[in-house]
């Protein structure tokens, strides 16, 4: 019996330290009241100053260009431009939510609990992790939209010519390399496996590489590389350290993706500056 209790110390709430405690009324209730009032007043003021948008009535025949999801989904819409749709829209976010949900089961010790940045080097890991996420995400977006090749050419006169054209963005790896014909249709099943609507029998390897292979390698590889480098440097020692770097990188990447999708994607989802953003409404194909 006793061992059963000892074996699960995690379920035990912390002991209370009564002389360190204050009364909830008034100390906490007062703060909650003030916070609620501040938000109520601010939101009333905001609502008085700024109206919620209401455009023309919905019309399935008139597609705005660009059409955008609600802002908190624009990170996924941005990912969608760079890889297979199912991967960007569903698989990546689902896997990330599962990973995030599993954080506490991976990092189980009590160190640094209940204090902001309570472990050694936590601030450094947060800053560096965020920077890696920020710069890495921007870099990848710029590369994949062909902007890096454009800058190199236009600003520095550096052109790879036709030899390096395949490096212009991820899609050009599929289009600009002399893939042998057979690699574009590799039969990997002797029958056509029909799951619901799609059939699976042949693999277009270059397309697979560009839409799934490389994105997967980047999404798994870059964070792993970052944590490995930090471990080599002696910055990441505990599981908590690894999670801080990973989570901070995620927050930065999430922020960059949301911001790009919201403010930097113009007509045809071209990468533009926010002040160049405009929306045209037209009949599809006639804009």
């Amino acid at each position: 019996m006793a061992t059963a209790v000892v074996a699960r110390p995690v379920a035990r709430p912390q002991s209370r330290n009564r002389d360190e405690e204050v009364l909830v009324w008034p100390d906490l209730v007062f703060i909650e009241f003030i916070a609620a009032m501040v938000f109520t007043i601010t939101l009333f003021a905001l609502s008085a100053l700024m109206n919620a948008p209401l455009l023309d009535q919905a019309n399935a025949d008139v597609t705005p260009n660009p059409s955008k999801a609600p802002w908190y989904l624009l990170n996924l819409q941005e990912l969608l431009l760079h890889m297979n749709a199912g991967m960007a829209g569903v698989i990546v976010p689902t896997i990330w939510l599962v990973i995030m949900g599993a954080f506490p089961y991976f990092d189980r010790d009590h160190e640094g609990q209940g204090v902001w940045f309570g472990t050694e080097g936590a601030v450094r890991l947060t800053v560096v992790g965020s920077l890696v996420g920020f710069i890495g995400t921007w870099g990848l977006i710029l590369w994949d939209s062909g902007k890096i090749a454009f800058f190199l050419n236009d600003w520095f006169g550096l052109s790879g010519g036709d030899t390096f054209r395949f490096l212009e963005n991820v899609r050009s790896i599929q289009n600009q390399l002399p893939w042998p014909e057979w690699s574009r249709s590799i039969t990997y099943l002797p029958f056509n496996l029909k799951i619901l609507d799609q059939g699976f029998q042949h693999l277009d390897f270059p397309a697979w590489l560009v839409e799934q292979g490389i994105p997967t390698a980047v999404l798994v590889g870059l964070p792993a590389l970052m944590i490995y480098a930090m471990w080599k440097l002696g910055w990441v020692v505990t599981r908590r350290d690894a999670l801080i770097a990973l989570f901070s990188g995620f927050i930065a990447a999430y922020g960059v993706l949301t911001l790009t999708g919201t403010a930097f994607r113009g007509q045809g989802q071209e990468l533009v500056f926010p002040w160049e953003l405009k929306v045209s409404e037209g009949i599809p194909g006639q804009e």
Partner: protein
Amino acid sequence: MVAEVTIAMAVETPSKPTIADKIYDKLFHNYVWKSVFRTGYPNTPRNQMLVIATNVFLHLHPTRIHRTHVKITHTYCLGGLSFFMFLGLTVTGILLMFYYVPSVERAYLDMQNIQTTVQFGQLMRNMHRWMAHAMVILVFLHMMRVFYTGAYKPPREFNWVVGVILLVLTFLLSFTGYLLPWDQLAFWAITVGTNIAGSAPVLGPKTRFWLLGGFEVGPDSLIRFYTLHVIGLPLLAAIFMAVHFWRIRRDGGLARPL
């Protein structure tokens, strides 16, 4: 000797009640007040604890908490404010429901009417919209604060998981509400959003069809999104919030260093 006795007596004699004391007595020690609140006004430690313990709403709290947790910089009230947004959205949402009919013929006209002819209609709509945005942001920031204070560590593992579920529910609540104005913004955002969901391998197309009640956004989508938005998802969110709050208490209040 004599002087000493008088001083002691002066201390022990209660001072004559002032007008304020009399009003206080009339207000808080009468039969009706006590039938509602049981305790007097919370001006003594005993009453302050009783008011928390005997009031169904305040009773979400313990009667006493650790000193560090009332510091604003520990939580920035982010979880509490997320909940407050949820409450505010419920109130403004119910008000909007009085005027809004989720049919393709009426939805857009009702929105225009809410903005132009309903008393405070525009204000209610604005409040509902901005609070929804605020809630998404607040919940996300709350998650960040929980992470960076290491508050998901044992014994709070499961409450973190409940939190992740609440995050998803918050996104879904906001997403389903987005279609209801039935304007171009709503229609195309939901078209894009459900296309994203529909791109999932194997289950995607079915999920999309199930969400929209058809192959594209139409009358059936509107009623589905409406039902999810006003009852299905809020109910789920309320249940998970109840679990979330209950677990905070069961896990011994907020996390602090061992």
